């Protein structure tokens, strides 16, 4: 496994969490697994850092939490996107696209 992993840029973790939850409500572990899978293990997310982020998002009212039963029949905390969260996701996606496009342009031409 010689592949180099990339640390997440500041602030992008929130965006990734929101995007992951956009599909369906999930618990913490599943979010972390999914992010790993989709990014083909390129992104390095310290698993623990997910939780403060989740609580922060909940405080902001972008996601809400509910206790439910997991696929292996255990009690787990499920997170789901709220309406404002969905709006926020669109906003952040948008600004992310603008940012990356701008940076790409600079890298190409400068």
């Amino acid at each position, binding site marked *: 496994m010689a592949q180099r992993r990339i640390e997440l840029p500041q602030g992008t973790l929130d965006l990734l969490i929101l995007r992951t939850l956009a599909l369906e409500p999930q*618990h*913490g*572990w599943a979010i*972390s*697994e999914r992010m790993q899978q989709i990014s083909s293990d390129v992104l390095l997310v*310290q*698993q*623990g*850092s997910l*939780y*403060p*982020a989740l*609580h*922060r998002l*909940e*405080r*902001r*009212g972008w996601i809400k939490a509910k206790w439910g039963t*997991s696929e292996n029949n*255990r*009690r*787990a*905390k499920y997170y789901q996107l709220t309406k404002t969260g969905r709006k926020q996701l669109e906003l952040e996606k948008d600004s992310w696209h603008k940012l990356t496009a701008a940076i790409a342009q600079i890298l190409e031409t400068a």
Partner: protein
Amino acid sequence: MFSDLFYRLRAFLRREAMESEADAELRFHFERQVEKHLKTGMTREEAVRRARIEFGGHEQLKEEIRDARGVNLVETLFQDIRYGLRILARTPVISCVAVLSLALGIGANTAIFSLIDTVMLRMLPVQKPEELTQVRMRDPRSPNEEPEGTFTNPLWEALRDRQDFYSGIFAWSWAQFDLSQGGAVHDAKGMFTSGDYFSTLGIRPAAGRLLTADDDKRGCPAVAVLSYGFWQEHFGGAPSAVGGTLSLDNHTFGVIGVSAPGFFGLDVGNKFDVAIPVCAAQIFDGPRTRLDRRSWWWLNVAGRTKPGVGAEELKTRLGVVSPQIFAAALPADWEAKDQQGFLRRTFEPSPVATGTSYLRKQFRQPLHVLMGVVGLVLLIACANIASLMLARASARHREIAVRKALGASRARLIRQLLTECVLLSTAGALLGFFFARWGSSLLVRYISTGDNKVFLDLSFDWRVLSFTAGIAVFTGLLFGVLPAFRSTRVSLTSAMKGSQAVDAESRTKFRPGKWIVASQVALSLVLLVASGLFLRSLVKLVTLDVGFDRNNVLIVRANLHNAKVPPEQQPAMFDEIESRLHALPGVVSASRSVMTPVSNYIWNNFLDVDTPNAPTGDAALAFFNFISPRYLETVRTPLLAGRNFNDGDSKTAQRVAVVNETLARRFFPNGDALGKYFRVHPDPGKPALPIQIVGLAKDAKYASLREEAHATAYFPIAQMPEDAEEQVFELRTSARPSALISSVQEAVAGVSKAVPLEFHTLAEQVDDSLVQERLLATLSTFFGGLALVLAMIGLYGALSYLVSQRQPEFGIRMALGAPRGSILRLVMRDVAVVLAGGLAAGTCLAMATVGVLQKMLFGLAPHDTFTFVAATSVLAAVAILAGYLPARRAMRIDPMAALRYE
């Protein structure tokens, strides 16, 4: 924002539950991760190890979650408050001094601000006040002057009937009514209101009904509406008052209703007791009523703009209708030149949402000056507390070092220290609020005079509350920030090493303390200079040679019109009363006149003389009084030459006058006024009789103490051109004037029981004209003194602290043979440096700012040397005393004891 706060609070209150939830959540994740690794064939041990590395520290994570949830913020806030209270309670004296000085500062600021708020900023308690505009008149000949706001009744009626841009328009006028029927006057504040007054303002009745357009028709019946306050005070709120009657100036009015509570009229500073329709003026005036008079200016006019009519449009349309309205109300008897001017006037709207007020004109500047004064006091109080905090923070040096060593962040420590400050300032603000309530009503009582009771609705509104809250936070930060930042900048090693090192360091640390004390001295000097200037102005005004003797003079105002005495019988009755009063025991001399000195009333006109280069324009204006022969003797205005009036100067005899020095000098510069003649500019259609000057009197103040002497002419009261149905008796008494009131009442009742009498003393009347000066002098002296005390506490505290810190050093110096005097000099040198710096800065600051006081001073320039020198010396003397006490303590240190210390 709210959901966030709510979340944090819930997180805080349910922290046990949430803690265990977070625990369970983290454990769940961890176990799933272990399972995952087990599936790939790792040993259990290996799987747990991997999961742990991937996951990070459990406890550390929980702390981060707590932070993310915002629990910490709330929790530490409570911790800080609890800890702060404990710290403050540990030094109760210092804390009390701090809270008390803050309370005084904040209370004074709130009190003055609440006055500014009520007088100048607050909206009227009526429906949509922003739609109201007052109608005023601009004279094109004096475009820079304030437009005039008083109307004649014909002018008001013409405007009312010829406009269509106001949805409601109304007029009002203030009046004083006597409720008694003879004997001592019992005044009620009356208001003439036109028919649509209450309906346009949207005022509801509290009982009965209010005046309507139907009540305001010529020849209307005498009906009245009571204000809620008057109803409560006078009738105990009895429902039977409505339908009852009330005597106003000896005329009976039927009470038809009571207006809603909280409405006092449109003029801030006044409140009405009774409102009667404008048409009722005829009942008081008789056939020559002011309702028809085209040069009797008495009404104010305001209206509510129709929806859709903007401010600009209103102005244009008022301008358009102006010519025809002024033409309709043109005073026929005016000279052609004045009529032309009258016709060229235009109406102008001015916003009246905050009401109108004579108080604004009179007290705007004094209130702003006082606001500045109390602002300075608050700054000084802050500086005081800042130096206290600084001293205490240095004493907590080691505590802070220990906390830092244990891992507290600097931000956390600063927050803790600032919390303590905000606690202090909050306590100060709460207490200050009570001071303010008490202080502002005291102030209102102070600016009320015998003749003019000021009424202000002082209930605090949101503006005052937020002002107080604002300065509480602001002051807390102001005196907290510097100590908090300084004291948390600790070098751990030196702090842990021991106290000697700390002491060496804190000697340099005293420097900001010095700065604070120096700035206190500077600010105090500014206040002392200001109060010195005001005091000296007042003293100059009070000790001024006014040209009459104000002491021991009782003034009795008698109104024979209200007593319903026929005009032709009045002169004889006034004569009779005067001679009875003169004969009263205890009366040295009694006289009567139309005017009294410094009384707010003036009577003036232009004089014509035949001499070459006679004064013209304003220089030809002279001020009049009509007096009985004993007047000059009674008020003690000396007659310098010629003769006094006597009984021979009757209505049919040659017209004569006694003039003052200024009149004589101005109209007869050759010094030969006696025996010469002048004429008074006549009313249209009336002859101007020549008046001979028979006497010369000393200059006396006429309308105000501040005026330059006016040209004044005294005429025999028997030769009055028209009847004065209200005249004033002056009684020079041998003892306290007010002791004579009952015998005067008896004497007058011996002539007629129906005559209403009003009593003052001349001294009161003169004093009342100095309300503004006295207010400024008293308050600035009070606050100047307060500032002085605060600054001295600051200096004393800072020096005591310095001395206690340097005790070991002084001990060593003495042990090595330094004489005690040199220790004293050492400390006093510090005092001298601080004092010199503060005084220099304060002098510059005062020089730069006192210019704004110019208009409020009398008889001295703002840069009055005496005041500056006096203020500086007082401050220096007190500062040296405050510094000497700790210095003496330093000198008496026992070297052995000092060295044993530590």
